[in-house]
């Protein structure tokens, strides 16, 4: 500590130690707040249409699912002093013979902590993403929708979860162009 340069280095060195300890403490407080968001999804409309998938040069066709849904969700409990933003998404999952586990995101949203309301109400909302199955055909399989969330904190680890009460009743992918109201 005899010269200015050495004191500068010494203070900065101890600052890194203190910052790390402070960051650890802040990250740990994230676990003090129970994260119990609620959500309910209602499937309004399911349609399957055949479209070319490879662009104008391809003649290959895939079945695309077009989904409309209602969402009523309250994400208030995900926000504490260490929450920067959250990412929520609705995914559809269904089984299959060749590929037994399928899960695809059909809608998502980033909600910043500065957002005025942490509640979301959607009526007859069309899915953001029109998804297709890996085999190219849905073949009348049964599926469900579910809402999941991801909390991105200022300091600390990402936290993941899903609103268990959001899982919809199972519905069947309709045949191409046959519309089924659920």
């Amino acid at each position, binding site marked *: *500590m*005899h*010269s*200015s*340069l050495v*004191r*500068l280095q*010494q*203070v900065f060195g*101890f*600052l890194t130690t*203190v*910052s790390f*300890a*402070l960051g650890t*403490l*802040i990250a740990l*407080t994230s676990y003090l707040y129970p994260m119990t968001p609620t959500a309910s999804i209602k499937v309004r409309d399911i349609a399957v249409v055949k479209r070319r998938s490879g662009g104008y040069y391809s003649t290959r066709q895939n079945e695309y699912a077009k989904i409309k849904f209602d969402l009523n969700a309250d994400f208030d409990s995900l926000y*504490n*002093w*260490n929450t920067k933003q959250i990412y929520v998404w609705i995914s559809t999952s269904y089984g299959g013979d060749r590929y037994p586990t399928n899960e695809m995101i059909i809608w998502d949203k980033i909600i910043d902590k500065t957002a005025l309301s942490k509640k979301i109400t959607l009526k007859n909302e069309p899915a953001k993403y029109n998804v297709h199955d890996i085999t190219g055909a849905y073949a009348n399989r049964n599926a469900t929708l579910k809402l999941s969330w991801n909390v991105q904190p*200022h*300091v600390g680890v990402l936290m993941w979860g899903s609103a268990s009460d959001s899982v919809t009743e199972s519905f069947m992918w309709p045949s191409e162009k046959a519309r089924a109201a659920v």
Partner: protein
Amino acid sequence: MEAIQDQFQAIVDGFIDFKGQKLAEQITTYTLSVSAILAFLIGFATQNIVYTLYVGLAGTGLTFLAVVPPWPVYNQAPVKFLSASGNKSAGGGVIIVDGQEVKVKT
């Protein structure tokens, strides 16, 4: 010209005495730790992490300002060097430690 150079060098070096070094180290430890604890408590109490950032930055700036420049308070006990006139005879010297003469063998 050389005098100006020396003056400039002294400002850049910023040497302080031994007691000043101990004091500077203690101030570093205490102000940084206390400002971190304060930053956490204020941020947690107001549930606003931005306050934690600002209080922490303020404490850090204060620490740098208080410790890095060679303030006069760090130079209250400069080391006194023996004068060259202590050498009475060639070859053997008399050194005074705590007011007592010490004979030095050569």
